[in-house]
């Protein structure tokens, strides 16, 4: 049932992930090779020709989070360098109907560039059509509406290396438990491209690369606030778990709480994205062994630069990828800076001193 569910989820997406021996390459909707985000830069001449033109931009996000804040910061800084004003910022709260409303509302402000994360290929296909009709330059984050063509409909897809994030999480957990043992897999039980890809990459990496590690428990989660009870049940049925993968940092807080309540200091946790509670636990040598993050600020910068290149009628690569980053206790300070372009919280810096 679960396998079927995930196959269905994957079928909805337009991206293809290669299944080669290394299975480390993320490729675009039509098999395009990934261009590294570092290759997307604006020259001084580009910046000069963008300034004082009165260009406007809109940021239409799927939710609000630390990750989104960092992406926004990267985009705003890049837009500011070109004198482009961000006139609208929205949060669809994972609601497809609200995302459509947000797009319509934002278009009233006549933005020249829109950076957005389409919630789902099917529901967003109709939603972005008006933006195309208005000749707005579209740059998508991590997902693309079904049937859209790069060049005529949108400038580019910019994404974190989702497969690498899941794979690096598997590698980090495997390393922390010595390459053998029993692990639990807590995945996002919803059709959401980003988490689905990362979760499945973790699972397939464990299954293919680590024959001595068995996934003995798996549970889906849709409401992060229920993570503690879910993890408690998992630990009750499998008290000898060596490690647990948690789909992202917020539910990992609940898993951590369940381990603490059970007095369990042995089971390792690996999760995705940076957040202070799990970061602090890792810094103090607790259950959390690694956090795998994307370079969120770099994603935002790249999206803005791609949109601006499109405004200048320059060719843009169809599929751009920002690298993944494994953050451990030893690299937490530098990793935080690299991912979010700001210092780690003081509590974490104090803990690793």
């Amino acid at each position: 049932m679960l396998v079927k569910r995930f196959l269905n989820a994957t079928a909805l997406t337009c991206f293809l992930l290669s299944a080669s021996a290394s299975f480390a390459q993320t490729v675009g909707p039509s098999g395009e090779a990934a261009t590294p985000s570092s290759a997307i830069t604006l020259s001084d001449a580009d910046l000069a020709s963008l300034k004082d033109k009165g260009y406007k931009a809109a940021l239409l996000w799927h939710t609000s989070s630390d990750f989104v804040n960092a992406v926004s910061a990267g985009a705003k800084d890049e837009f500011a360098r070109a004198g482009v004003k961000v006139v609208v910022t929205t949060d669809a709260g994972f609601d497809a109907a609200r995302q459509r409303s947000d797009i319509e509302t934002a278009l009233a402000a006549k933005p020249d560039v829109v950076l957005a994360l389409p919630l789902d290929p099917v529901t967003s296909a109709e939603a972005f059509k008006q933006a195309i009709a208005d000749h707005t330059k579209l740059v998508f984050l991590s997902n693309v509406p079904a049937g859209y063509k790069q060049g005529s409909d949108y400038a580019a897809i910019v994404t974190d290396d989702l497969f690498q994030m899941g794979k690096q999480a598997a590698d980090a957990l495997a390393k922390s438990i010595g390459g053998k043992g029993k692990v639990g897999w807590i995945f996002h039980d919803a059709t959401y491209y980003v988490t689905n890809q990362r979760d499945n990459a973790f699972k397939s990496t464990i299954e293919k690369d680590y024959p001595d590690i068995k996934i003995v428990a798996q549970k889906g989660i849709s409401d992060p606030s229920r993570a503690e009870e879910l993890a408690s049940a998992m630990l009750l049925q499998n008290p000898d778990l060596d490690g647990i993968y948690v789909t992202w940092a917020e539910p990992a807080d609940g898993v951590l709480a369940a381990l603490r309540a059970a007095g369990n200091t042995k089971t390792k946790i690996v999760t995705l994205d940076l957040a202070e509670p799990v970061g602090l636990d890792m810094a103090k040598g607790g259950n959390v062994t690694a956090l795998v993050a994307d370079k969120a600020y770099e994603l935002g910068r790249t999206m803005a630069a791609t949109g601006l290149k499109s405004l200048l009628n320059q060719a843009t690569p169809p599929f751009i990828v920002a690298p993944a980053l494994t953050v451990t206790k030893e690299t937490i300070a530098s990793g935080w800076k690299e991912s979010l372009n700001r210092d780690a919280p003081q509590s974490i810096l104090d803990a690793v001193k």
Partner: protein
Amino acid sequence: MSKTNPSLVPSGRSLSLLGKANLQQYVVYLGFLAIFLFFAIVLRDSGFLTVRNLSNIVLQTAPVTIMAIGLVFVLSAGEIDLSIGSIVAVSALAGAVAMNGYGITAGIAAGLCAGLLIGLVNGVLVAYVRLPSFLVTLATMGLFAGVARSLTDLRSIPVTNSAFTGFFGSGTLLGIPSLVWWTVGAICIGHIVYRHTRFGAHVLATGDNNRAASVSGISVPRIRLTVLMMSGVLASLAGLLYAGRLQAAKYTLGETDLMTVIAAVIVGGTLLNGGKGSIIGALVGSLMMGMLNNGLILMGLSVSDQMIVRGLIILAAVAVSLREKSR
């Protein structure tokens, strides 16, 4: 909380007090006007006043308005329906699946029947098993949210039938979007039933004092059953409108609408504990919510600031509105 009908204000009160009370009856309309004027001035160069943007507000709020009509009846009868968001998702998905398999008629029937049946379940449990509507609909909200998720294994279902999408969300008639026709039609029928029929009077009487209503010959259980079924059908209509507008159905549709609908209805002058309400007020409340979202986005506020300002304005509107009712 006492419910004061302005017509029953003691004759000894001063004329100025009467004038003030009447003015406060229209607080939702004045509030709407004030917010509109504020955005019209502040956002005069940001596209707020364009026909396209104002039309967007009406189109975006159509499903909420339709749900709000049902909730006015439910609240006026002294009950509540927390399951409307889940009904939206189940109905949209049931309609989309049936339509893709058996055509447009089956799709519409499946969508509306889903809402009718869930409303029937809610109504029977509240009216005849005598369980509190808050708890019943809280339970069915979770129950049918789960049903919506499992119905299509979390998949989004594309809606490609152009007749359906035209009729329910994306088309126009005489140059006017179909969503506007749905809104106007539902408001007119809702208002007439609420204000000018015996059923509407019985709903209000039931919410005002159900024992007195029962003694005077009104079948209180039948009223409760009917309003919850109406709410179910109207929520399912909202689900079909979402499916037509997005040309797709997903289990998350309607998930975040409950609080918006409740706010629209309360701001629009309907009492939470029954006996008084307004269909036109609910329409204005719904448009006010849509206009707030629209204007705050166009002002360029950060998402957090939008939430704070929206919360403060709703709080102010509800405070003024409830203050009037408690006089």
